[in-house]
């Protein structure tokens, strides 16, 4: 067992786990989006889980920081919140905020994050997102709506970990990056339950069941 301090609370954590997991297990919330429990190699891509650690010059991502004895973690500093807000604002600026028509309304993690970080769903700093209207319906069990995807990568990464191989992959580069279904070799059916694992993991309304 490792003993560390998060926001001055003394926490005991299993060796080898991340600061993010230790905090969440002790009911200290650190904003996060791309991390999935039991994931082997966290992608650290959403850039929301910043914390400050005594002795380190700049905020670090909690999902990639392994707990150490007597570590002193602060989750609620000005620098941390500023980075988290900017990250969320950026995500929202590339997201079609249209909650009224979205199946994820009220259970959407973006709404929760925005509430927690006190960020408006349509941040004034950035121009309004222009929806592309791109919906990929090629998958037999689900649909993918690009305008709602925040590219957290959960569907790609967790699916790889849970199903042995990913049913999705990233495609494109830069701001044109999207997620796209990966089809199995001809003749092999796409497992419905495995596909729906991804739908359940999606923090937004980007992946929806067919029908």
């Amino acid at each position, binding site marked *: 067992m490792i003993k560390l301090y998060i926001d001055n609370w003394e926490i005991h954590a299993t060796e080898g786990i991340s600061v993010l997991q230790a905090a969440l297990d002790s009911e200290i919330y650190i904003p996060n989006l791309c991390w999935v429990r039991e994931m082997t190699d*966290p992608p*650290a*891509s959403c*850039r929301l889980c910043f914390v400050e650690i005594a002795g380190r010059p700049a905020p670090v991502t909690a999902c990639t920081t392994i707990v150490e004895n007597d570590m002193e973690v602060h989750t609620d500093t000005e620098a941390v919140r500023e980075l988290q807000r900017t990250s969320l604002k950026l*995500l929202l600026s590339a997201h079609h905020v249209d909650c009224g028509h979205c199946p994820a309304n009220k259970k959407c993690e973006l709404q929760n994050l925005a509430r927690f970080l006190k960020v408006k769903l349509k941040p004034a700093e950035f121009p309004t997102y222009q929806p592309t209207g791109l919906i990929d319906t090629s998958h037999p069990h689900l649909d993918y709506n690009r305008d709602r995807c925040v*590219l957290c990568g959960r569907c790609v990464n967790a699916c790889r970990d849970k199903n042995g191989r990913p049913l999705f992959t*990233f495609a494109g*580069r*830069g701001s044109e990056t999207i997620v796209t279904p990966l089809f199995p070799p001809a003749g092999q059916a796409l497992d419905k339950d495995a596909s729906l694992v991804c739908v359940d993991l999606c923090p937004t309304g980007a992946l929806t069941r067919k029908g």
Partner: protein
Amino acid sequence: MAQNNDRINQALQALREKAAGQWREFTGSTIPRIHIGMATCGLAAGAQETRDAFEAQLKKDNIQAVIHPIGCHGHCYAEPLVIIDHPASGLPPIMYQKVNEGKAVMLVKNFLKGNDPLLEHMYGAMEESDTIPAVMLFPRFNMEKRVIMDKCGRINPADINEYLALGGYAALGAALSLAPEAIVETVTASGLRGRGGAGFPTGRKWQFAAQQNAAEKVVVCNADEGDPGAYMDRTILESNPHQVIEGMIICARAIGAGRGVMYVRAEYPLAVKLVTRALEQARELNLLGQNILGSDFSFDIEVFQGSGAFVCGEETALIRSVEGYRGMPRHRPPFPVEHGLNGRPTVINNVKTLATIAPIIENGAEWFRSIGTEKSPGTAIFSIVGHVLYPGLVEIPMGETLRSLIFDICGGIPDKREFKAVQIGGPSGGCLPASFLDTPIDFDSLTAAGAMMGSGGMVVMNDETCMVNVARYFLDFTQKESCGKCTFCRIGTRHLLEILDRITKGQGKPEDLARLEWLAAAVKQGSLCGLGKTAPNPVITSLKYFRQEYEAHINDGVCPALMCRDLIAYYIDLDKCARGCDACVGCCPTEAIFTTANRKKGIDQEKCIKCGECRHVCIPLYNAVGKASPPGTVPMIEKPKVPVKDND
């Protein structure tokens, strides 16, 4: 061990003697030798056509001569570059510049057949002599210090024996007789820092890898080279691949690796071809493969062709790409030296870093430290492009100032224009103004100035360059090349680009500058990998050093450098325009140029698309086409109601 060392030395000695014999025969004969630079820069300037012309003319005139393809000398402005060594003439070898097909024919006819060396076309002699001034008299030659590129442009990169004959693989022989720890110690003592950008101490990297307790380790040579405008690594691989291979073998020996990967971008077909051939030749001579030179050490190298994504030069993305996945960086630690290719400890070094190893092993750490500065020993190679008289590759000792590099070595700014800024370090670097010209070139000074050594791309810009537009250009690049994984880089660079785009179009808002600064700082701090962490640098430095230029765009709708198309207009200066001249009329794609009542010219601003052609073609003597910003300030010229005929 001693027995083994003798065997290694004997094996190497035999290879070197054979190579030396071949070289003596080649250089000792009286048959003329025509050395032609045939790396990509030479080929782009027409070296293949030049070579064909030489061959055809030699045949026609029935003259015996040997054509010797060599790599690049670094003098890209003078390509195609040819050196003619004609011993019977009694002259030293002579370098000729810009040898097109016509010049090739003339050289055969006049120099090889007749006895006139056509000195009016020469660059200079390759050796000191009483008869012909030597190239070494020019600063572009004598201010360089060649360690990495020492053999570039002297040997045929497709023949391992030429490298061996000039002392190649001697360092490998020496390294094989040393304990691996001793190799690491020498590299550490030399103070060598990685030439791939960040300047991490190479000895320390090797030591981490050597310490790892793993059955299999890997050495990777990073030749991804994705920065726009940078081509040093390509040139080295095309001119002298063996020096890089030798460095990889020595690294493998030092850390205990059995597998090597040469990661070359697929857009470098000539480099891929020459490296592949070099590896085959090294294998044939047992410089690679099982029990190298009879030692107990085995190592081989494969070539991996990257598909040309800038981000794949980042080491963790490079590893993913070799493993067969999409090239996306991952969080470090763990660093590749612990957990690299397929989980194995992996040393990744840049082409130039690896090419520096053999000279260090051969001449010692002390020698290396005597070059350059205390904290950045050795040489730096830059590919200098943009507004300088002699662009190309330059290898200089670290610590040289930017001024001496740009003005003394590269000849300064052409066309009587002023120096404005230099962009160092490619898309990750920064733009420095004239007040930084006396900054010494080394890792730490450049970083302190807000630029960075990067991999060695350098763009020199004159006063006709708009710095907002330059920042926009680099952001456009990084924005497209972002792997799309993390929030700040994927979306943040996009917004930065949009703001810059607006400013260059005259649609900037007063709050844009503060927003640029805020967002640039956030992207720098929040991004996952080096691409995102450095992408804002061009914006940050240009805002810092050229702020008034941004303000002019936003507040006054003026582009001070007269570059941003939406903020300028072209006009014809009637005091300068020559009556009856119509040089510009035909070039205009939109027929915007009309003839005035007194048979001078005017531009119909409604029709003009601001292509700038008329300014190009206006005869320099008149220089009558001008630009003005904002567009509304151009002098109005009355268009006659009835068209005036041009030539009456």
